[in-house]
Structures are given as structure tokens and as C-alpha cells.
């Protein structure tokens, strides 16, 4: 079974050529795949793993602008003819991925129109996610954004429990740690999540969906439609 749905959508012939260059790897929590300004050496197709794209401001203030799991690929700049990453790609969900050296990927990409179409479509969905994030950050309160973020993570890791520190969540949501603590406590009080020792457990998914801002549904529809 092919875990990554982008790869699963590639026609068999193109996939067979790709597979030769794909190498199974395990991505660990906190691994940095790219730093801003770094050359992209590999692309990654997450299976059970989850990768956050973070934009930095003033060298330290971060904000998650994209979240990539089994529906996508890390390394989209290559698709757009750019060999350098402009964001930090940080592993936030441990798990499997298939990776491929950039040169081999580009070779296959250029000779396979179906692969190009898949990846252009995916890039467009990722852009929708980025613009949504920009607007969501502007208008929605931390608690609703946290709920959205937990749902997006839940969809991709397909497990009810995942590791997460409040500091990390602060970076994702672009708020101070106290803000995260307050929001997480509020969700916990409503029995939607459990939170202890850096592990979050989803207790009531339906309830969390009600607590999240509209942005969750919007981005989900985009990806499901793509």
C-alpha cells in the first residue's frame, strides 16, 4: 500500500520509475529538514509523519504557514524551479516518509506530465492553505486556531495521541506560551482534549470540530477536492 496519497495518484508507469529513487526514512520529532536559505537536497513524501513549514520574522518569531502530511510533498520550491527553501521545514509528527534526492526527483518530474499535473495541483492547494493561515491568524482567537490545528494534525497522523510541547505550539500559532496554555486548558476543561507531559490526546473529535474556526473545513475541502 502506498501511504502517501500524492504518490498513490501518480500513474503506475511513472510511479514505477519514481520508486527506484525513493528511500524509506523515519522522520523524528524536531528534525529540521530545511532551514530558510538552504539548498533543498531531498524531497519528502510523508506517510505517517507530519511536517510543518514555518516562516520566520526577526530571526525568531515563527509562524506555521503550512502543514504537510500524507496528502502532500515537502520540497515544493523544486516544482516551481527554485532550489532553495524559504521556510523552515520542521518535523512535528514522528513517522515514516519516502525521500528522494532532488536531482533524481527533477529528472522524473520533467519527463512525467501526470506527475507535473499532480504536483501543480497540490502546490495550488498548499497556497490556499497559506493564504487561509494568513487570514486566520488575523481574525481568529487562539482557542479556535488551536482546535483547528489539532484537527489538521489528527487528520494526518491518524492517531488520537501525539507528542507536543506548548513551546512548539506557540511557534505554530505565533503566540506566546501563556496564550497556548490558556487555550489548551480551556479545551481540556470542555473535555475535548487531554494534555499531560507533552502528549495531547483527542477525546472528542466532534466537539473539537465545533470549537475550531471555519478555516478547518475550508482547507479540508480544498485538499479533498484536489
Amino acid at each position, binding site marked *: 500500500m502506498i501511504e502517501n496519497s500524492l504518490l498513490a495518484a501518480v500513474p503506475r508507469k511513472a510511479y514505477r520509475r519514481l520508486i527506484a529513487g525513493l528511500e524509506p526514512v523515519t522522520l523524528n520529532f524536531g528534525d529540521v529538514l530545511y532551514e530558510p536559505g538552504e539548498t533543498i537536497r531531498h524531497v519528502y513524501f510523508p506517510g505517517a509523519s507530519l511536517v510543518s*513549514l514555518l*516562516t*520566520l*520574522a*526577526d530571526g525568531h*518569531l*515563527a*509562524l506555521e*504557514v*503550512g502543514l504537510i502530511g500524507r496528502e502532500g510533498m515537502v520540497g*515544493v*520550491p*523544486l*516544482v*516551481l*524551479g*527554485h*532550489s532553495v527553501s*524559504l*521556510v523552515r521545514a520542521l518535523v512535528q509528527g514522528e513517522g515514516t516518509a519516502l525521500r528522494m534526492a*532532488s*536531482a533524481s526527483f*527533477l529528472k522524473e518530474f520533467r519527463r512525467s*506530465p501526470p506527475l507535473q*499535473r499532480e504536483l*501543480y*495541483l497540490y*502546490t*495550488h*492547494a*498548499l*497556497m*490556499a492553505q*497559506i*493564504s*487561509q*493561515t*494568513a*487570514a486566520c*491568524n*488575523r*481574525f481568529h482567537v487562539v482557542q479556535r486556531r488551536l482546535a483547528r490545528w489539532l484537527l489538521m494534525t489528527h487528520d494526518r497522523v491518524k492517531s488520537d495521541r501525539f507528542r507536543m510541547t506548548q513551546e512548539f505550539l506557540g511557534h505554530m500559532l*505565533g503566540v506566546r506560551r501563556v496564550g497556548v496554555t490558556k487555550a489548551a486548558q480551556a479545551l481540556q476543561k470542555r473535555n475535548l482534549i487531554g494534555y499531560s507531559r507533552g502528549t495531547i490526546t483527542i477525546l472528542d473529535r466532534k466537539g473539537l470540530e465545533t470549537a475550531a474556526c*471555519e478555516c478547518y473545513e*475550508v482547507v479540508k475541502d*480544498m485538499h479533498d*477536492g*484536489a
Partner: protein
Amino acid sequence: MLALHSPKQNYLLAALPDADYERLLPDLERVPLELGLALYESGSQQVYVYFPVASIVSLLYVMRDGPSAEIAVVGNEGVVGVALFMGGESTPSRAVVQSAGHAYRLKGSHLRTEFERGGPLQYLLLRYTQSLITQMAQTAVCNRHHAVEQQLCRWLLLSLDRLPSNELTMTQALIANMLGVRREGVTEAAGKLQAEGLIHYSRGKITVLDRPKLEARVCECYAVVKRESDRLFAGKTFAADRQL
């Protein structure tokens, strides 16, 4: 010399090799872009792509519950309608003319045919898409972390870069709408910049008086976006670049 009205006033079109440019030329149609005109509505099917010249188009993300925020600006360095060649059916954003001028429009079906040839046009459009993504991501982080005054400076500079003069036709209410902040916030920030002699505004016109000071005041987000868009046109050596 460039003709008074030429599609080559748009940098993307100007960067095309002659053969590619001439193939597009008969299908490029010059259209006026009036202030406030919506080129696309959020979620709607798009028919044309627009290459702006001396005009600015804002891409606004519209929330289901009403408010909107600008996620990118497109001027003579770009194209409006990325969804048409990336293959997405529609975009979740609105495209609204923020500074009146003209654009050259091209039927989406024509553009797709050209795009699929895989030549210089495809290369340029994809590179432009990358710089647009950078702008969107930087706008997101700027919205989150920077003061309204800095955001206003960024917005003014990005707009100026896309226009031939140092004057913008713009009301504070519109700016507030773009930045997704309350009008009072914009009034306060603009008042401060005016008191310090950086800008002058009256009756819906903003004139930038001291660009270097504005650049000293702006957050880094401006430089990040500008660098990416400059890089796009830096070396027009397509073949060399495409080898990576």
C-alpha cells in the same frame, strides 16, 4: 524604445524571448482596471489571467463570516490567475483592483496551452508562483507579529514598487480593509508617519515624501518579498537556471 502602450510594461511578458512573446501577442487584450473592480470572486470560475501594467491588484482572503485580509499584491511584476495554470478550479481569494490602471488579459485556455509547451513562459509563471507563495507566507507572519505601523509601511512600499509615481489613490478605510485591521489603527499609524514627514495624505491620496525613511521604518517582511520578486528577473538566462 518601448511603445506607450505595450504588454512589455509587464515584466513577466517583457522577460519572454521574442518567439514566445509574439505567439501570445495576438491574444493579449488591453483592458482598463478601475479602482474597486473585482477580477475574481472567491470560489468562482476564472476565465482570464491578467498581466497588470501600472496598476495593482490585491488578493484578498475572504472569511465565510465576513471580514477579509490582503494576502498578496500583484502589479507589473506578476500575473493574476495562478489557479488557471496550476490546475486548481478556483481560488479561495478575491482579486480586487487596488490602484487603477490597465492590464493585458489572456484567455485561460490559451495560457494553459502555452504553459503546457513547457517553455520559457512556463518557467516564468512557476518562478512567479514561488515568489507569490513567499509573499503570502511573509504576509501571514507579518500580520501576526508586526505593529500596524510597520505593516502600513510594508504595504506602502510594496504598492509604490508597482507604480510609476510616488502617489497612491487610497482611502484609510480601504487600507484598513486590506490590512484587516480597524480603521482607527490605520488613522493612528498614518498620522504618525505624516507628522514625521514620511508621507502626506489628503482626500484619498497618499504621497510618499521620504522613501528612505519609510524603508528604515518597515519590518523585514518588505525586504524578503522584494528580494524574491527581484530574483525572478535578475538573470534572464532560462536554460542555465533550469539546470539548477
